[in-house]
């Protein structure tokens, strides 16, 4: 198996932890894995991405454009930003909840998150839209959006990992007191 996966969102949304969970799951299955992360200034509310390459054959962690099997978008506009990386017939899992940039809030730029979702619905056949607000309400926390998205990614069939692989990764990486919430998040809306 070989998979190229891009996680993207806004700094602070938890993309790096999600990337580490995928890596843990791959390590557990002895799959070769390379990743590259955005660390630094952009973590302060800027656009961030993680590139993940699972399986043999890749030399660099950076995925070339048009070669991602799956994009997991933590934010609609950020998913659209990464869309040129998606391969033909690739899958997108995206959170419906948009994060307004400060520049748009103060009227210096424009941003319409719903237009991004409509664009994705038109352009991406294999699309899963996750209702993050509903998830947060039902789970009682908005902090596990990353795990909710990973659950949806498993069920899209393009992550190349199974639920039990991620459960094991959660058990390895998540503190005991948050584990139950994270496990529920993984199967939310299953």
């Amino acid at each position, binding site marked *: 198996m070989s998979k190229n996966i891009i996680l993207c969102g806004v700094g602070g949304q938890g993309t790096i932890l999600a990337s580490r969970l995928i890596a843990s799951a791959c390590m557990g299955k002895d799959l070769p894995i390379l990743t590259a992360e955005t660390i630094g*200034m952009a973590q302060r509310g800027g656009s961030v991405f993680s590139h993940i390459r699972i399986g043999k054959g890749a030399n660099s962690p950076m995925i070339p454009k048009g070669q991602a099997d799956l994009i997991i978008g933590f934010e609609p506009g950020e998913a659209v930003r990464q869309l040129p990386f998606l391969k033909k017939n690739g899958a997108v899992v995206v959170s419906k909840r948009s994060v307004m940039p400060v520049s748009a809030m103060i009227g210096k730029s424009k941003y319409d998150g719903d237009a991004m979702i409509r664009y994705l619905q038109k352009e991406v056949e294999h699309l899963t839209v996750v209702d993050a607000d509903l998830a947060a309400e039902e789970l009682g926390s908005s902090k596990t959006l990353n795990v909710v998205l990973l659950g949806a990614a498993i069920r899209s069939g393009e992550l190349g990992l199974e639920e039990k692989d991620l459960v094991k990764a959660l058990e390895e990486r998540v503190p005991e007191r948050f584990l139950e919430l994270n496990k529920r998040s993984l199967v939310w809306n299953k």
Partner: protein
Amino acid sequence: MHKEFLMGNEAIALGALAAGVNLVAGYPGTPSTEVLETIAKRSTDKTYVEWSINEKSGMEVAAGAAYAGARALVTMKQVGLNVASDPLMSLEYIGVKGGMVVLVADDPGPISSQTEQDTRTFGMFSKVPVFDPISVRDAYEMIQEAFDFSEKYGTPVIFRATTRVDHGYEAVEVKDEEEYLVHTFEGFVKDSSRWVIFPKLSVKNHGLIEKRNRELAETLSDYPKNQILPENAPGCKKGIVSQGANFPYVLDALGEKNARVMRVATPFPFPERLAVSFLEGLEEVLCVEELDPVIERALTFLCGKYGLKVKIRGKLTGDIPSAGENSPEIVSGALQSFGLGDNVAHADPENREQAPDLPVRPPVLCAGCPHRASFYAVKTAMKGLKTIYCGDIGCYTLGNAQPLDMCDTCLCMGAGIGIAQGVYHMEPDTKCFAFVGDSTFFASGITEVINAFYNQADLTLVVLDNSTTAMTGHQPHPGTGRTVKGQVVEKVSIERVLRAIGLQTVETVDPLDFGTAVETVKRMQHEPGVKAIIFKSPCIAITKPVAKSKVDPEKCIACGKCIRELGCPALILGEDGKRAKIDVSLCTGCTLCEQICPVHAISGGGKKEEAPRHDQRAKESKAEEPKTEEQKAGGERI
């Protein structure tokens, strides 16, 4: 051996530990920071580790250890090497006894830096050998080899990685602790003819260094990481030479293509014999590298020296971009134009419709960041006056963004104070402000303050003290009273340092007490000479909110002042698209918005004390009742 999934910087750290490093010093800077942090976390008490106050200090501490025969590592980002360049330039003339590696993380792009300087070029300038890893695994092995090499040749060596290696992750086989080398050393042996730099010694050693580096160009041709991939080569007239994170891009783009490929692992001294053997028989070579055209220049030079008729292409010929980070697409595109590699089509495969306008998302100050309150207080106090706001390096550079717009200049660590001084001397009627963070103050602000004070400048120093080195991930510094190993030590007080310099007016204020903050700035800007306000409030990442603010929609008059003037990410428009709303997932209860709301529609924030804030502050600082007129006005003169 065991396998671990490691960040490049973690792999470098574990490699250094496996090589028996005895002392590690450094100053935080993206993308280098995690090397020292990992060593602090994973080392035993036998390894000495410190966050130095700046890179120059770190370099000197490491040099001292290496003089004693110990193995030493100093870590920094590329611009940090500028600060440490004075000791490094001289150190190369003196040399080392124990292995000493200077880890410098370069930042093509730049992603989190001021410059796109190339430390390989710095290696040439300082005559220090340079190692350049291509991947996480490669870096783990190479750092160990770099220590051996440094010790063998008695020279410091530069280990230069770039962001995609530093912040890449890979599963790597690493040594167990029992397998680590134990490096024992004899200690410092007095010998003033060796350790004291004088002109006579310098000219002698200069000659020896040049001779050694010529010999190393030969020796390094046999270093296994300088390699030619001959299996790809039958009858091929075109060659690719690459380095660092670009090398895997080249391999990915070439796939099964027939090409001769060379990797340059030691750009200086350049592996001459190997490179000449690579060039022989080729007609054209493309150099795929980032930052400076180091390889391209070296090969062009060799073609001249050996009379080789090979066309060398790269940045100088416009085949590779001369600025910015190379991506897999740029590399495969360049290979394609060069006549190699067509298997990676990077055009948008779906010919999608034009996407709607993407959100513009520059990094911003976090919700509840105390820097926002400090900037807003100064902005409010100085409204309508002729001012300049000189910024500096840290999270607070983000004060430049709208709507705050409070950073008129930013150059390098500590520079804001000097720039404010220079502007004052030319424009005495401008109210000059220099903003500096607590860690930056210790790194390079203190000498600048002394210069301004001594030379009779009139400016306001604003120290933004959030009790941590925030931008690079919350490292301790002298003001925090904590070391990297968690040891509790005596704090260095910024206020006392400023008073010791001789500043007459120094005040410490909580910027989240908006009224007092504005009043303090208004009052102090009339004081003559250099005066300082220390806005002290901890970074939101190291504190917890007690309660979050809430907008009362009944009271909110939808004036938009809070959103428009503060630009806090937690302040958003409510469902009606007019009234303000607090994003509770982001709010930290700083209460700044509560204090500026003209109709008091926002309340409930958790950092609000029961007693009026300035009373609380007075209680905490054990201030006595004001006695003199000056003190009644709020000054803390001594």
